[in-house]
Structure formats: structure tokens, C-alpha cells
């Protein structure tokens, strides 16, 4: 991780064989703007026939936006899209399909009420005298399936097949329209090892037939296993295009995360991370092999009172999923959860609340703050939920609680009657925090509490978390910013690919590089 690997100059071929040919798709300087946000800023992407091209970046880096810009779902504000040497602008997926660009989405976008044959052939059915000839249609579908080595009955309903097979059927459909570019958007996120292999066999076959494949995945190993070339995005900008073989994993992870995290360094000195003298204190929450299929692999995790446990990992690595299991927002299907030493089944957030476990969601706007209510109403909400809706909290008590937290957390404006939706992000976060603190929790799960808020507010929230832990609260702290996790946490659980791959005890000698190394290596040699 010393020097950055050389980005391939545009005129220098990555693979002699592949780039003798010009790229089938060349996107240059793509800029997409949403109200107030530049989702993409001058991004380039080249797809070569007979190559698997991985599009890398964290959630929100702009991968989906780029794909949607290519397939005409979003219109671009600047830049050019050249397909086969001619500049094109597509108005929608149907038009992109006609130009030979097919997309297979993460959530299989087929109709599971119809047969496999129909899903493959829909819109391209064989017709005789204007009417669909089902026998011929099925025969055609069978041939297309066979080309991908898929031996399934075309007449069977789609829903009777596993997700992996449905995924392959979707690819098969892409081939019917003679796709020369196939975009696979997170195709493997719900597949297991064998199914992934099956998918990859098909992908390799397509590649050998000269199809250009754009592969998007969070799973680093899969990307290295299948791709020839990759384009890395970060925060809507292009980091670079690299040959997969030239880019070690550690450097890829660094490029995806970025190193602009120093901004916070000059803020407050690091809060003290005195590891609490545990003695015979038992963990407040203890997860033993807790997991949920398709969400997070079974993991062990102890959280002691007075301790901040950081969850580190790339976005989509399972951090939120882990927290949701601890909060009962999702039900676990294996393992055991002990709260205060007692085996507990958390079926709903309500039962977690009753055990003084609270969760502050990462999506503040949709799962947290109720924008139309006042600051007061938002803060009292948690308390009221705990009491039950029939027993209204006396006005005086509510005022007291609200005043206390508005002052303690420094909520600005210090006006309990302000409409919460009009507050800045940082202050909304504080209101949310106040809501949960008012219920006097013993375990506080904070999912990205500092995302999208300004530097000052960030530092305040960090200090607050440190204080709360000092007062004996157990805290699970989730953040995409490794520096922040390192600054606050006593221990750091590292996740990758929806699996907990390791745990670090924090200390002055632990650096972000250690965490990055652990993420890159998958915990194999850490």
C-alpha cells in the first residue's frame, strides 16, 4: 500500500486480445445530478467485448447510478455514452435492450407467476398467425437454456426454482435479445457457494463468446475470481480503471474507502478508551452463534456495560444486519442471545425496548426522525412507546425530560416546538439520540450516527458516546469511517461479506491499516 498502482492509460491495452477491439461501450465524463446532490461527477467507464469488468465502490459511491445512466433509467447531465462507435442516449431499459445492453438485477426482475419459458421469451414469443405458439416458444426457450447449460423444464413455473436458477434464467433472457453487454448488478448477494460457481461458469462462457460483462458485487473474492478489469468509484467520482491482476486487495479497499478521513483528526483529542475493569461483570448482551439466513452469518459478540464496541467493515458487509438482530428488528433463525445473562428471544423491537436495548437507525429520515412532528414530540415518542399508548405522559414530565436533553445534547435551536424536519442533520441525530436516552437504555445501538452531518456535530456526538459509556452504558457503534470507530471503540468487531471475520482489542498501536488489512484478508491471517 505504498504507491498507487498505475491506472491504465486509455490507449494502452489491458489485455492484448480483448482490446484489439474497440470498447463496445464507452462512457466518458458522465455526470448525474439529483436535486442538491451530484450523484456522479465526470465518471468514465469502458466495457470491452470478451471481458468481465467489475464496478467497485461502497454503497452510495454511484455504482447503481452509473448503471442506470447507461441503461437510460436516469438521464445524464453531462458526458457521452458511445455504444459500438455511435453516441447514444437511451430513454429506458427497453431501448437499451434493443441496442444489446441487458441488465440482470439483484432482486430477480422476472415474473414468478409465469413459466420459465415465458420468462425467457416474453415479448419474443414464437407466433403463428398472430397467436403465440407455445410449443415452439418452449422449444426455443429450451435451446436458449441449453446454451447456458441449464437443464430445467421450460414449462415449470419460475417460482418453483431456487433464486440462483432464477438468476440464470434472467441471464438467459438477456441472451434471447442478443445482448452484447450484460450487466450483472449484485447477482450473487443471495446465492451460496455452489450457486455462485454455477453462475460464474455461465459468466465465463459468455465471456468466451465475446460478450462484455459488467459485474457489480460487494464480495471482493468473487470480483477477483471472475473479473479482468475493474473501475473503482468513490463518492460519485472516478478513482480509476485497473487491471484486476495489477491491483492487490488492500489497495482496492483503500481506494474504495478513500483516505480523506484525516479531517476529523485535528478535532478533539481522542476520548479516553479505558477498557473497563471487567472483573466478574457479565456482558450486558451476549450473542452466541446468532445469525439469520441471507442477512448475516452466525456470530459471537459480547458487549459489556461501559464499553463501546465498534463494528467495522465496508458498507453492505453486514453491520446493520448484525445490529438489527440485537434489536429484534429482524428475527434470528439460529443461535442464542443473552441479555443480562438471561437467554432471550427478541421478536420485536418492543421486546428489545423492554430490555432497555435501543437502536438508532442509519436512515435517520425514514426510520428515525418524524419530520412533521416537533422536537418535543419526537423526543417523547420513545418514552411514550415504552409506557404504552394509553397512558399519556403528563405534560410537565414531558417538558422536563425534553428540556433536560435539549440542554445536555446541545440541540439547536433549543426550541422544543421546532419542527424536527427543519433541523440540520446533526441536530436531528441529537433529537433521535435524546429520544432513546430518555428511555434510559442499557445498550445503545448506534448505526451511522454521524453520517452526513457536519464536522462539529460529529465531534459532539462522538464525545457524547464516550461519556455515555463512561457512565456505564453499553454501546455498539457503527460507522463507515474507520478513524471514528477506532477513536471511540474499546473493541472492534470486523465484518466482511456478511460475516464477522475478527475482533480487535483497541489500543494506541492499532491503526486503520490494521482494520483494512483484516478486511482485505478476510481474517485468514490476521
Amino acid at each position, binding site marked *: 500500500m505504498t504507491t498507487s498502482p498505475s491506472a491504465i492509460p486509455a490507449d494502452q491495452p489491458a489485455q492484448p486480445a480483448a482490446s484489439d477491439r474497440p470498447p463496445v461501450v464507452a462512457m466518458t465524463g458522465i455526470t448525474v445530478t439529483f436535486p442538491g446532490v451530484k450523484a456522479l461527477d465526470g465518471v468514465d467507464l469502458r466495457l470491452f467485448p470478451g471481458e468481465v469488468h467489475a464496478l467497485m465502490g461502497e454503497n452510495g459511491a454511484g455504482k447503481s447510478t452509473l448503471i442506470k445512466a447507461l441503461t437510460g433509467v436516469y438521464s445524464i447531465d453531462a458526458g457521452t455514452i458511445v455504444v459500438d462507435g455511435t453516441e447514444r442516449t437511451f430513454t429506458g*431499459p*427497453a431501448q437499451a*435492450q*434493443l441496442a444489446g445492453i441487458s*441488465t440482470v*438485477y439483484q432482486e430477480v*426482475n*422476472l*415474473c*414468478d*407467476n*409465469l413459466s420459465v419459458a*415465458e420468462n425467457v421469451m*416474453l*415479448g419474443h*414469443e414464437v*407466433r403463428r398467425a*398472430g*397467436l*403465440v405458439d*407455445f410449443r415452439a416458444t418452449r422449444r426455443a426457450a429450451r435451446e436458449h437454456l441449453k446454451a447456458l447449460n441449464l437443464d*430445467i423444464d421450460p414449462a*415449470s*413455473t419460475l*417460482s*418453483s*426454482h*431456487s433464486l*440462483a*436458477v432464477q438468476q440464470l434464467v434472467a441471464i438467459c*433472457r438477456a441472451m434471447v*435479445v442478443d445482448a452484447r453487454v450484460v450487466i450483472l448488478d449484485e447477482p*450473487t448477494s443471495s*446465492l*451460496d*457457494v*455452489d*450457486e*455462485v*460457481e454455477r453462475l460464474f461458469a455461465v459468466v465465463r462462457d459468455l465471456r468466451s463468446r465475446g460478450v462484455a460483462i459488467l459485474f457489480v458485487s460487494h*464480495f471482493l*473474492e*468473487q470480483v*477477483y*475470481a471472475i473479473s479482468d478489469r475493474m473501475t473503482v468509484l468513490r463518492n460519485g467520482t472516478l478513482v480509476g480503471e485497473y487491471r484486476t491482476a495489477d491491483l*492487490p*486487495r*488492500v489497495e482496492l479497499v483503500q481506494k474504495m474507502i478513500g483516505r480523506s478521513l484525516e479531517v476529523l483528526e485535528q478535532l478533539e483529542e481522542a476520548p479516553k478508551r479505558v477498557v473497563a475493569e471487567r472483573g466478574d461483570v457479565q456482558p450486558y448482551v451476549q450473542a452466541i452463534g446468532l445469525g439469520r*439466513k441471507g442477512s448475516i*452469518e452466525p456470530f459471537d459478540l459480547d458487549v459489556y456495560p461501559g464499553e463501546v464496541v465498534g463494528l467495522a467493515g465496508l458498507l453492505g458487509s453486514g453491520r446493520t444486519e448484525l445490529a438489527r438482530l440485537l434489536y429484534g428488528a429482524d428475527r434470528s433463525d439460529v443461535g442464542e442471545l443473552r441479555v443480562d445473562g438471561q437467554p432471550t428471544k427478541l421478536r420485536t423491537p418492543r421486546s428489545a425496548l423492554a430490555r432497555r436495548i435501543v437502536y438508532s437507525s442509519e436512515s435517520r429520515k425514514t426510520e428515525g426522525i418524524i419530520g412533521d412532528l416537533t422536537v418535543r414530540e419526537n423526543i417523547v415518542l420513545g418514552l411514550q412507546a415504552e409506557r404504552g399508548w394509553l397512558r399519556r405522559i403528563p405534560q410537565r414530565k414531558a417538558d422536563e425530560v425534553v428540556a433536560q436533553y435539549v440542554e445536555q445534547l446541545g440541540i439547536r435551536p433549543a426550541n422544543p416546538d421546532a419542527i424536527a424536519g427543519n433541523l440540520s442533520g446533526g441536530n436531528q441525530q441529537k433529537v433521535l439520540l435524546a429520544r432513546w436516552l430518555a428511555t434510559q437504555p442499557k445498550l445503545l445501538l448506534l448505526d451511522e450516527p454521524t453520517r452526513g452531518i457536519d464536522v462539529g456535530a460529529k465531534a459532539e456526538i462522538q464525545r457524547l458516546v464516550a461519556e455515555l459509556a463512561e457512565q456505564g452504558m453499553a454501546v455498539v457503534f457503527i460507522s463507515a469511517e474507520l478513524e471514528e470507530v477506532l477513536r471511540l471503540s474499546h473493541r472492534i468487531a470486523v465484518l466482511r*461479506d*456478511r*460475516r464477522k471475520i475478527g475482533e480487535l482489542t483497541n489500543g494506541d498501536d492499532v491503526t486503520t491499516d490494521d482494520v483494512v488489512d483484516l478486511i*482485505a*484478508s*478476510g481474517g*485468514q*491471517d490476521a
Partner: protein
Amino acid sequence: MATDQLTPTRPAGTATAQKTPRWRLDARYQPVLGTVVVLAVMLAVGGSRYENFLTGRVMANILINNSFLVVLAVGMTFVILTGGIDLSVGAVVALSGCISAWMFTHGWSAGITIPVCVLVGTLIGLIVGVMVHVFEIQPFIATLAAMFLARGLCYLVAPESIPITDPTIVKLSQTRWGTDDGLVITPSGVIALAVVAVAFVVLHYTRFGRTVYAIGGSEQSARLMGLPVARTKVLVYVISGTCAGLGGLLFAIFSRSGYSLTGVGMELDAIAAVVIGGTLLTGGSGFVLGSVLGVVVLGLIQTIITFQGTLSSWWTKIVIGALLLVFVVLQRLLVLRRR
């Protein structure tokens, strides 16, 4: 640092493809099978309890008396298959009937009146389709608005019941083809059966029809597959409206009058027939022939209660309600089990 591992390990054994047992009926036919069973039970009960129940005459009468409902149910099937609903059909029946009665009393010929009153339905369907698709209004609300509109227009056209004396209509209503022992069919019945046949072919053997099913399965997917979702969604309401217009004509022939209070709640009968016929209200699954069976079931209920003789006709509603509940719950269970 590199590992050969592709994905985190998962419990073994999940990779094997799911197999459905051979003996099980294709899931798509299960709800219709339920309808057939109900029908068989009703025929058996009716046949064993009442003399002259299982005769051609009774069965033919069910079709003849409900021919307009068959046509409505066919149109409704298209709409419900896409996941929509059409509440306007009952009012459109009335409007179509009122307009035909008004035109006949004002001296228009049948050759013009008949197409016009069918096209009135087409027009209302088109308006609804555009509201649903272009302005993305919930089908429930859009068709509710169309229902009030059509019902209001009825009063404008025919404040009171207008008898129809046009010779063509009179002839259509009196013609009976068939044998002497009661197995007869009327022109209305023939029209209804023809509509069913055409709908069957359109729904199953045209790209339009398959797109209807695809939209019901997942509109989002259908759009991403590049299917003509917009056109199809507008068209199903046009079809339903046209069927309602035609249904109005058949009802006018049946009652030989145009009256603004005709067909109050008839849209709900049509929806009930479609649901009892095994079409999922969420769309994507169901058959036109199922809906016909649904109408027959409704007709049979009425017939049995007539044969019983002592029960009030409100029992029809009670039985239909109970049956509908059972079917909706059954459908829900099927969907849940499929997950």
C-alpha cells in the same frame, strides 16, 4: 492474503434445487380447482334435494339470466389480472342501458344505437385507463370516480325508467334457439359465450395477454423486461369498459328498459365472480374460464335458494359473502404456502 474462498460458507445442502412433487397440480390451477369442487358440491346437493334441478333447462337459464354478468366478469378478469380493480362497470351498465333507451325513444335505429352504447363503455374505460396509467391514480379511486360519473350521467339521460320498444331489441329478447325440453340459448347467451371465447384466446395466445399476466406478476419486472406496460394497462380498462358497455346492452335486452338504478352493486357481483373463479386479487394468476365458473356458482346459489322456496332472497347474499370469504382465505393460504 488471497483466499480461494468465494463466499462465506453457508450450511451445506441449500444448493440443491427445489423439487416439486410430481403429483401436485400446477399451482396456477389450484384456485380454479377449488371453484370446480364448489360447483360440483352445489350441483350434487341441488340435484339430490330437488327434483328437476339437474336439467338442461335450469342450467341454460343460469347462463341466459346471467349473460350480462358473464361479460362483465370477463372484462373484470383482465383488470384484476393486472392487479387493478374496476368499480365503474355496474354504473356503466346502467349508463349504456339508459343511453340505448333514450336513443330508441328518439328514433335512432338499432344499427347506430347498439354500437354507440357499447362505445360509451369503451370511452369510460379509456378515461379510467389514462387516469390510472398517466396520472398514476389508484385504480380504486379512478374507477370510483368513473362510477359516480356514469351513474350521475344516467339520471341526466333517463330520470325515469324508459321502456324499449325497438323491434330489433324486442326480437333479440324473445328469440330462443334450442330443443323443446328446455335446453335453449338466447342471442345474449351466444354473445356472452363469444366474448368468453375471444377473451380466452386474447389472454392466452397473444403477446398482449401474456403481458397482462406479466404485469400482474410484477409490474416493475415487466417494465424492466421491456414489455409495453403502459399500453397494456390502458387497454385492460378499455376492455373492461367495453365489456361493461356490452353488458349494458345485454341487460337492456334482458329487461327491455333503460333505468338509472340498474346494476347498483353489479360491479361487486362481477368482482365476486372473478374471485370465486380463482383469480388472485393481487393479479398475475387466474383464468377467464374460472370467472365464467364463478358466475355459474353465483347463479347456482340463486337457483338453489329459489328451489328452496322458503328462504328469503337475501340468503343469496349471505351465501355469496361466506363463499367469498372462504375463497379469499384459501387464496391467501396458497400464496403464503408458495413462499
